[in-house]
């Protein structure tokens, strides 16, 4: 593999003098690229002239692996796609398999899936906001955010035994029913969450330094957001009112009472703040789910041990913390999918970097990356 050296061509600097650019690798091993992304940045002074993202440092070929595994064996693979939010990565895949194989999922399993996915959204946002805050110097916010994330991980641990890669949502339902007293601990958690989130809001987003650093950086207009395929908080931060839970409702979301958080001027501040305010809504959804929780089994009856859906293809998507996470499956009737494609929101959101960053200074690259919140397991698949 060639660690090639960029060729450098003279550029007319802002002072009007022909001066060479400085090419810098904000490379795969960098604390604030949130993983193994490499950004070849052409600098004029400290102003970014051009930023060329190079990704693929975590490309494990999950789509190729999926072609040699049965439908049930692929669920642990989807955990490693968006490893900050494995629950909804599983769910997106399972929804497509259920649509392909025509499996009906019992009500209780759907409610459990919504609870678990909304808690995972809060945990994932905490990771996203915390890392973005640490990049602008507010390290205490990272610790606050991680404290909240750890409490959610404890809930997941008591539910399905794993801390990060849960393998909890399976085609046809969920793997375990909620243990004794789990709902009470979830309610206790969501009761106290509003106070913590207010604290975090004033600590970070209310801080004048953060406002100075984040406002007006990486402005994305609404048309660009839609045209460039951005989704989730990145698109909603620019005023695009599109949330799959509300505008393409699935599972039991139509029965939920929540509103979609939309920013207005599409800069890093609004994207970040959308994530935080969404957590209030997620907590409300969790409370409603616990209130309406029906009884019954959590797995579909009569599910063959080896799911072999009829030939055909299916696509389904959910609203993950990063956007619309879709899975496209093509089946040829055998117990192994013929083709699996993951439509990754982090991949499409990251494609905006070079457009958002041009003209800003180098530290703003970290701010924009923090607001785009890429997870490279899902970007590189």
């Amino acid at each position, binding site marked *: 593999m060639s660690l090639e050296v960029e060729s450098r061509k003279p550029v007319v600097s802002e002072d009007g003098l022909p001066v060479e650019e400085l090419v810098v690798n904000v490379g795969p091993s960098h604390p604030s690229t949130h*993983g193994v992304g490499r950004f070849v940045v052409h600098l004029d002074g400290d102003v970014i002239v051009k930023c060329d993202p190079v990704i693929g440092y975590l490309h494990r070929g999950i789509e190729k*692996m999926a072609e040699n*595994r049965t439908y049930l064996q692929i669920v642990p693979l989807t955990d490693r796609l968006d490893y900050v939010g494995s629950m909804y990565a599983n769910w997106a895949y399972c929804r497509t398999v259920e649509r392909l194989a025509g499996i009906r999922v019992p009500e209780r399993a759907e409610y459990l899936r919504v609870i678990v996915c909304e808690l995972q959204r809060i945990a994932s946002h905490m990771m996203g906001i915390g890392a973005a805050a640490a990049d602008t110097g507010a390290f205490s916010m990272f610790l606050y955010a991680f404290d909240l994330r750890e409490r959610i991980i404890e809930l997941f641990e008591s539910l399905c035994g794993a801390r990060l*890669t849960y393998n909890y949502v399976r085609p046809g339902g969920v793997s375990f029913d909620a243990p004794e007293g789990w709902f009470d601990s979830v309610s206790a958690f969501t009761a106290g969450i509003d106070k913590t989130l207010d604290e975090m809001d004033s600590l970070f987003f209310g801080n004048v330094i953060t406002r100075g650093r984040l406002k007006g950086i990486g402005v994305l207009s609404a048309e660009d957001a839609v045209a460039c395929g951005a989704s989730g908080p990145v698109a909603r931060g620019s005023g695009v009112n599109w949330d799959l839970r509300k505008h393409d409702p699935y599972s039991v979301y139509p029965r939920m009472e929540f509103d979609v958080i939309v920013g207005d001027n599409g800069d890093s501040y609004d994207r970040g703040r959308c994530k935080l305010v969404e957590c209030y809504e997620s907590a409300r959804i969790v409370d409603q789910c616990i209130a309406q929780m029906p009884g019954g089994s959590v797995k579909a009856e009569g599910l063959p041990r080896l799911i072999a859906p009829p030939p055909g293809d299916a696509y389904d998507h959910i609203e993950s913390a990063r956007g619309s996470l879709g899975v496209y499956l093509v089946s040829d009737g055998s117990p192994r999918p013929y083709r699996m494609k993951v439509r990754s929101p982090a991949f499409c959101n990251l494609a905006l970097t070079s457009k958002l960053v041009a003209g800003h200074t180098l530290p703003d690259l970290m701010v924009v990356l923090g607001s785009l919140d890429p997870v490279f397991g899902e970007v590189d698949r």
Partner: protein
Amino acid sequence: MAKGGVGVALVDRIGAALNRTPGGIILTSVDALVDWSRGQSLWAFPMGTACCAMELIAASFSKFDFDRLGTFPRPDPRHTDVMILAGTITEKMKPSVKLLYDQMPDPKWVVAMGNCTVSGGIFYYDTYSVVRGADTFLPVDVYIAGCPPRPESLQDAIVQLRELVKQESIAPGNRRERKGNLPRVIAEGGDAQ
């Protein structure tokens, strides 16, 4: 001082001289002191690529608190003693990991965290771009199983690493010889040195 030349000679002469003292008492006591101080402050280079990086972050924050072991994550290979490989290593990432390992000052150790770095883990079969195990190109000292391993087992690895640190010595004779970069276990047909 010539580049490392005279300095190395000086250290070896002193080490050898200390070695000749009866029973090497002075040497072992100096070694013990040096190794103890190294073991208590192993700064970690978090080579975090995938899911294990999340556990590495969780381990170094307030709930599990890596700092009480003296392990402080530093993003620069120059300031670190231990490279913690956290996450899948792909073919495209391999030269970077090797370069970062070479850029770390001696003495240095490698902790392979998670199944992906130990043996390719869940990505062992059917992938074209995953390196099956970090010990194919790096001398790994401590392996941690788990996908991802719990933060407690990660911290236990640091405690175990201190045993390895105690084998280091300033005298050339005792210094644990590294056979180049080939992993010792595989190089000698399985008998761990």
